[in-house]
C-alpha cells in the first residue's frame, strides 16, 4: 500500500500507474499565444504548454493568412502572378518578384539584358536591407526595447522612398518582372542611392551600439534558443537562421545566380562568443547570432550596392518578352537567396500561357518548423526572443 496514493484511486481509473496520475496533477497550463498577440509577427498562433513560466512545449498553429497563392498561380499568366508574389513575404516584394521571374525565365530560356541584371541586384539588396531593418526593429520590440523599432523604420523610409520613385509603390512593387524590370531607374536614382548608402552605413554601427551590444539585450538573447548546425540542416533552415548556426551557406555565393559572382562580399556566420569582440555569452546558433548575422548582412548588402553602382551598365532594362508568353512543357525549380532564406519557385509549364503548377518554398515556413524543437524548457519571455530571431513573416508561411 505504500506506493498507492489516494489520488490515483480517486482520479485515475484502476490499473493506471501512479506516476501517470501524478503527471496529471502538475501545474501545467495551456496558454494561447496569438493569433492576436503583439509579438507573434502577424497571425501566428502558438499553443504553449507551460508549467508556471516554463514552456514545456510550443506548438505553432498556422493558416490564418492563407490566400491560395499557389492555386492562383495555376490560373494566371506568370506576368499576372508577379504581383501575387509581392504578397507572399510582404516585406521583401522585390526578392519574391525576382525569384519567380528567374524561374520563369529559366523555363522559357529568356535572356535578361545587362542593365536589367544590375537593377535586379540593386533592388533585391535594397529590399534585403529594408527587411532586415524591420526585423531588427521588431526584434528590439520583442525584447522590450521600443526605440530601435522606430530607428529601423526611419532608415527604411529612405529605401521605400527610393522604391516609390522607381515603381510608384512602397510595399507591393510588382517591379522586377519576367525579362528584367518593368521600368527603368528614374532620374537621379543613382545619386540618391549613393547618398543613402553613405548615410546608412554608419547607422548600422549606431544600431549595434544601441541594441546589439546592450548588456541586457545580450543577456536576453545570447545562449537562448540555440540551434546546432546539425539541427539547422536537419530542419532545413536557410538564410540567417542557418548562417547563425555557423554554416557558411549562401546561394548568392555558393550557387551563384544572377550576377552575384561579379561582386565581392562576405558571408557572415555566427561566431562563438569571446572572438573578435563578440560578447562572451554568445553561443553559435543562439538568438543573438541569428540577429547579428542580419546586422552584418546589411553591411554586406551595402557593399554589394556600392559595387553595383560602380558597374551599373546602360542599355535595355528588359528583354523583349512576347505579349503572350507560352510556357514550354517542362519543369523548373529554382531557388534564390531571399531575405529570410532560400526562396524556391517550382514552375511547371505545359505549352500554355498559364502554368500547370506553381509551388513555392517559403523560407519562413521551413524556418518556423524548428520552433517546437527550440521552444522547449525555456521561459515564457524567451519565446518572443526565439520566434523573433527566427524572423518569420506569416504571409509567406500561410501563402
Amino acid at each position, binding site marked *: 500500500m505504500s506506493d498507492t*496514493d*489516494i*489520488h490515483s484511486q480517486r482520479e485515475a481509473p484502476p490499473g493506471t500507474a501512479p506516476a501517470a496520475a501524478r503527471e496529471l496533477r502538475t501545474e501545467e497550463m495551456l496558454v494561447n499565444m496569438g493569433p492576436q498577440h503583439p509579438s507573434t509577427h502577424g497571425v501566428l498562433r502558438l499553443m504553449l504548454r507551460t508549467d508556471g513560466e516554463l514552456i514545456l512545449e510550443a506548438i505553432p498553429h498556422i493558416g490564418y493568412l492563407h490566400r491560395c497563392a499557389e492555386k492562383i498561380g495555376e490560373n494566371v499568366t506568370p506576368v499576372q502572378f508577379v504581383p501575387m508574389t509581392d504578397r507572399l513575404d510582404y516585406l521583401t516584394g522585390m526578392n519574391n518578384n525576382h525569384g519567380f521571374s528567374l524561374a520563369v525565365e529559366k523555363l522559357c530560356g529568356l535572356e535578361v539584358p545587362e542593365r536589367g541584371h544590375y537593377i535586379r541586384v540593386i533592388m533585391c539588396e535594397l529590399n534585403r536591407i529594408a527587411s532586415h531593418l524591420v526585423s531588427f526593429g521588431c526584434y528590439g520590440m520583442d525584447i522590450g526595447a521600443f526605440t530601435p523599432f522606430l530607428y529601423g523604420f526611419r532608415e527604411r523610409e529612405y529605401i521605400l522612398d527610393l522604391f516609390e520613385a522607381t515603381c510608384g509603390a512602397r510595399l507591393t512593387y510588382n517591379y522586377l518582372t519576367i525579362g528584367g524590370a518593368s521600368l527603368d531607374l528614374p532620374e537621379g536614382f543613382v545619386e540618391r542611392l549613393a547618398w543613402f548608402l553613405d548615410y546608412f552605413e554608419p547607422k548600422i554601427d549606431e544600431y549595434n551600439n544601441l541594441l546589439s551590444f546592450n548588456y541586457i539585450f545580450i543577456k536576453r538573447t545570447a545562449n537562448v534558443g540555440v540551434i546546432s548546425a546539425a539541427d539547422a540542416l536537419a530542419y532545413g533552415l536557410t538564410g540567417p537562421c542557418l548562417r547563425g548556426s555557423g554554416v557558411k551557406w549562401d546561394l548568392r555565393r555558393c550557387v551563384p545566380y544572377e550576377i552575384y559572382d561579379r561582386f565581392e562580399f562576405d558571408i557572415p556566420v555566427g561566431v562563438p562568443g569571446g572572438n573578435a569582440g563578440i560578447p562572451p555569452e554568445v553561443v553559435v546558433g543562439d538568438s543573438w547570432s541569428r540577429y547579428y548575422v542580419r546586422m552584418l548582412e546589411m553591411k554586406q548588402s551595402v557593399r554589394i550596392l556600392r559595387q553595383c553602382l560602380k558597374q551599373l551598365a546602360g542599355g535595355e532594362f528588359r528583354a523583349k518578352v512576347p505579349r503572350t508568353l507560352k510556357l514550354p512543357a517542362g519543369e523548373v525549380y529554382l531557388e534564390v537567396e531571399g531575405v529570410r532564406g532560400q526562396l524556391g519557385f517550382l514552375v511547371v509549364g505545359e505549352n500554355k500561357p498559364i502554368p500547370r503548377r506553381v509551388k513555392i518554398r517559403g523560407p519562413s515556413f521551413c524556418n518556423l518548423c524548428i520552433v517546437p524543437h527550440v521552444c522547449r524548457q525555456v521561459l515564457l519571455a524567451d519565446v518572443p526572443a526565439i520566434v523573433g530571431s527566427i524572423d518569420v513573416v506569416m504571409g509567406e508561411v500561410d501563402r
Partner: protein
Amino acid sequence: MLTVGLTQYLVLAAFLFCCGLFVMTTKRNAVGILIGVELVLNAACLNLVAFSRYRVGTIDGQIATLFIIVLAAAEAAVAIAIFVNYYRTLATIDVDKGDELRG
C-alpha cells in the same frame, strides 16, 4: 455619549477574535483557516497595544505586538509552503480531504 477608552478597544478586539475563531472553525479552505488565524492574532495585538497605551504606559505591549507580527509573517510563510505541498499532493485545498494519515 460615545467615548473611546480601553473597553472600546477590547470589545473591538473581542469581536475580531470571535470572527477569526469562526473563520477558523468553519472554513474548509486551508488558506481561509490561515486568514482566521491572522484575524485572531490581530485581535490579540490590538489588545496588547491598547493595554500598553491605557493601562501600563510603557511600550512593552508594542514590543510584544512587534514580535507577533514577525511570527505571524513567519507562520504564514511556512503555512503557505505547507499548503502548496498539500495542494500538490491532494490536488485540492479542502482541509477535509486531508484526514487520511497517508500521503
